[in-house]
């Protein structure tokens, strides 16, 4: 099955990349952008979803600074 994992900076963690994009969008004429956060998208094909959560905790994210969510895509 296909799994999609989203990893992003935890709330309150400085996200300089997101900040840079947030600053750049109005400069290009896109108004009304309040926040931008940049994270990571990980797609995997696995035989079973049983261990996906452990993968997220142990390797795919760093719980000190990141949070994650995942879903079965197909």
């Amino acid at each position, binding site marked *: 099955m296909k799994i999609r994992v989203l990893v992003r900076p935890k709330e309150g*963690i*400085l996200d*300089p*990349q997101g900040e840079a994009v947030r600053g750049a969008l109005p400069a290009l004429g896109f108004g009304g952008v309040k926040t931008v956060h940049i994270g990571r998208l990980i797609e995997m094909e696995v035989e079973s979803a049983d261990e996906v959560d452990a993968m997220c905790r142990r390797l795919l994210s*760093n719980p*000190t*600074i990141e949070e994650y969510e995942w879903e079965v895509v197909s």
Partner: protein
Amino acid sequence: MGGGLVRIGVTIFPGSNCDRDALYAVGRMGAEPVELWHAEADLKRVDAVIVPGGFSYGDYLRPGAIARFAAVMGPLEGFAAEGGPVIGVCNGFQVLCEAHLLPGALLQNTHMRFVCDRVRVRVEATNTPWTAGCEGGEELTLPVAHNEGNFFADAETLARLEDEDRVVLRYLENPNGSANDIAGVCNEGRNVVGIMPHPERVSDPALGSEEGLKILRSVLVGAGV
């Protein structure tokens, strides 16, 4: 220690690139350099370990995230738990944080650029095996070279690090946005130290400075040499 030279191991991950510099600096310290290949679960009876800088596994996921699972890390964790002196430099610091041997994490520099420069730091704690040879409050000029050196820990952890005197080095000019200007910390047992600056790069008068040897040679003080 068996009478011979103090044996200092340097871990080598596939993308380590300061490993040879660290081995060279160990020679400059007057100790015996020992290569510790990542795929071998063997610390080869070393007396101390340096986890050097570089890009251990390309750092594509997060710096240090994959290195933590290398075969050599098992015995290294055991060595650290028994009080063996371990220092992580730059990427090595990142590896030790990912391996939970040290608290916190190293985020991307706030200015989002790699920074290679010399910075002034102050030695804040001398009761670790890697700073025992320095004076408390001593100021050193050390090289930094990193993209993720911005130390982060939650407020509670930061407060504990400060209270327990576990901030080992502090920047006098913060090059990366690090919390509390932290350049280096140690674990509760004080035997595991992580620092962003590179002492091995200033361990030779031919390069203009030997200030890094004050840090590296500290471990010989602890070893009674």
